[in-house]
């Protein structure tokens, strides 16, 4: 096959002065040309909304009051958020909600380790895996409605189980002090399989040799887990936890279907607070400020976890 040579350098943008950049583009112009539409598209659909949201957060835009002139009001939306009693309450509720991730990680890792260890011992292991995965496939809004009825007073399954155990009159969804626990329980039910699957897939890829050596040395199950599995699986566990952490800030549907953030704002976590600001009170700019703060928070925590993770991986060599 005869190759047609085209002088790639002719296509390089004249503005690029650096010799290295020039040679990089000259050598890679085909992949760059092929990938650039995707990059431009992704920049448009991610960067533009982010810039627009940041811009909105400095204005006084209300969806329902578009007849009013739009003004730049500086950091007023941010200071309002930081001084708002309701926002503080939502932040505390969010921390309670996020604490559920710790339980999800512990349960997910435990399940993954058990399932990985007993893969060859249990018949029909695939069936168990499918059963474990079911909660992830339930649409969050549907799961909210489902659990709302399950926790329903008098008629709900949980109420009856509670009565059977001697725990009557528990207002799972009607008590503002108990409702957050209910939400966390539902979240654990739905998202533990998410951690399980990621960690399980990671465990399947671990090398067998260290385990064989440990077996020969007579290491106990616990020591094998503590000194082999856990250090080797730590990056994947951290990754799963980080993904779950980021996804938690998208948590809305289940809580909305169960309680709409009530009673008395008892289950109003930040995403619910943001939604209410945007679509119950139509304060677009204030909602944008909350969204920006959440984004910054996720980036900071994500970066910190990422750094910790790479340190740990480096430490382990």
């Amino acid at each position: 096959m005869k190759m047609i040579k085209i002088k790639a350098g002719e296509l390089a943008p004249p503005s690029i002065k650096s010799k290295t950049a020039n040679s990089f583009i000259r050598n890679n112009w085909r992949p760059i040309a092929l990938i650039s539409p995707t990059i431009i598209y992704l920049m448009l659909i991610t960067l533009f909304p982010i810039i627009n949201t940041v811009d909105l957060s400095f204005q006084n835009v209300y969806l329902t009051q578009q007849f009013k002139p739009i003004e730049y009001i500086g950091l007023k939306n941010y200071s309002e958020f930081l001084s708002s009693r309701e926002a503080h309450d939502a932040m505390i509720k969010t921390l309670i909600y996020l604490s559920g991730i710790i339980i999800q990680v512990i349960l997910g890792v435990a399940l993954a380790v058990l399932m990985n260890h007993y893969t060859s011992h249990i018949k029909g292991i695939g069936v168990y895996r499918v059963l474990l995965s079911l909660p992830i496939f339930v649409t969050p809004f549907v799961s909210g409605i489902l659990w709302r009825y399950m926790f329903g007073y008098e008629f709900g399954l949980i109420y009856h189980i509670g009565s059977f155990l001697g725990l009557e009159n528990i207002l799972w969804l009607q008590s503002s002090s108990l409702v957050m626990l209910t939400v966390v329980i539902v979240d654990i039910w739905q998202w533990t399989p998410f951690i399980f699957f990621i960690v399980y897939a990671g465990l399947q890829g671990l090398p067998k040799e260290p385990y064989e050596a440990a077996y020969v040395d007579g290491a106990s199950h616990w020591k094998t887990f503590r000194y082999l599995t856990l250090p080797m699986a730590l990056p994947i566990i951290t990754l799963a936890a980080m993904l779950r952490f980021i996804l938690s800030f998208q948590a809305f549907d289940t809580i909305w279907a169960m309680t709409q953030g009530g009673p008395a704002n008892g289950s109003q976590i930040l995403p619910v607070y943001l939604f209410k600001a945007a679509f119950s009170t139509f304060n677009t700019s204030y909602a944008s400020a909350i969204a920006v703060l959440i984004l910054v928070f996720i980036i900071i925590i994500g970066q910190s976890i990422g750094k910790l993770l790479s340190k740990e991986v480096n430490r382990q060599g």
Partner: protein
Amino acid sequence: MKFIYKINTVLLITVLLALMTIIVACTQETSNEQSSSDNTMDDASKPFAGQEIDVLLQRSGDTEYLMDNTDEFTEETGIEVNYTPIAYEEIQERTLLSLSSNSGEFDVVNPFTEMIPALQHSGWIEDLNKIPEEYNVEPIDLDQFMQNYQDYYTFNGETQFVLFQPDTRVLYYNKTLLEEAGIDPPTTWEELEEAAEALTDPDEGVYGYATSTAQGPWTVLTWLPVLYSMGENVLGPDNLPMLDSEAALEATEFYTNMVHNYSPPQGVSMDVFEIEPLLRDGTIAMATIASIVNDPNIGMMSYPLYDESTDRTGSGTTGGWGFGIVKDSDVKGAAYEWLRWATSKETMKEAALAGRLSPGRMDIYEEPDFQEANPNWEAQMEALSTSKMYFPLPVEPEAQEILGTELSRIVTEETTPEEGLDTAQEEILELIKGGGYYSE
């Protein structure tokens, strides 16, 4: 050489595709013009034949009827109708996002009443009085609709909506339970409390009273009839909120006591859909909820008065649904024709019979078949036609959120009625001042 051949092939295909697109587009345009001119020649009584309208509506039994029976309208007028039915929970976001972005997505919208001030002040909705003359269509007889709603739908002299399916908050009672206990439907607060006390028997699983207390608009909407029954209002002269008044406090205390003393344990956070089945099966004897229950064993009345001498300010708030035409629509004539059909006596009656039995036209309540289907028609008509909007300002969504949260905090005993109302008063006043709707 092969590369140049490939480029030529690609160019040829591109040119051919472009040519085909142009040819198809031109043919379609010609065919549209042809069809339009054929229609004009064939039937002069169908001035909007061939036009398409897009209608955003709330999904309910009533609107299902409209959607299922549009064929006859299309046959009569030649107007095609595309419906986008949306659940109640989503219609506010969808309507406002569509209108605020000037998407031109819908020609007709179906907002609930609390959305009206925002739509009116934003200037998104067409004046319905202008359309008949402009498009040479027969006007809708607006005098047939409940005037309290139509007054509310009129802004700066422009009638922007036509009432379709109103609702308000009323007191329902289980006739069997009251009859067995020898109790007449209560007409005053005192009688209501006495009846609730007499009917409450937790050991038997029967509770005297319940109301929608779930956080959100529901708490506000069921609290309003209590305040109105004292002859009071939320807003005073010049839009000054009156939530720190003695009357508001007394109304709130009564509202809360009824929930705490005579409702089932979950009564501090229940919605209408949880209460309705319990009312029907006799677990709850009386309930203040939306006027949507149709059951021969369930009686209906306006919320009992503070005392016999009180003149109520309204039965409850003006809830429900109306239709309006979007100002940016380029098929306003066709949209108006559809609106006239959808709100005609015949269509609305059939829709009501298929749905909530709560039509917006007064003349339907006089129809024997409607009266037969809805034994509570008299009480319903009275409650609906005396309902009143509590917060006719564009900042209503924010105010409702503030008041709803505080009432939920009061009912769940997170705060006291005094503190909760003071907080609501302070925040709503600030909101109103910020919006420029009140100045000291």
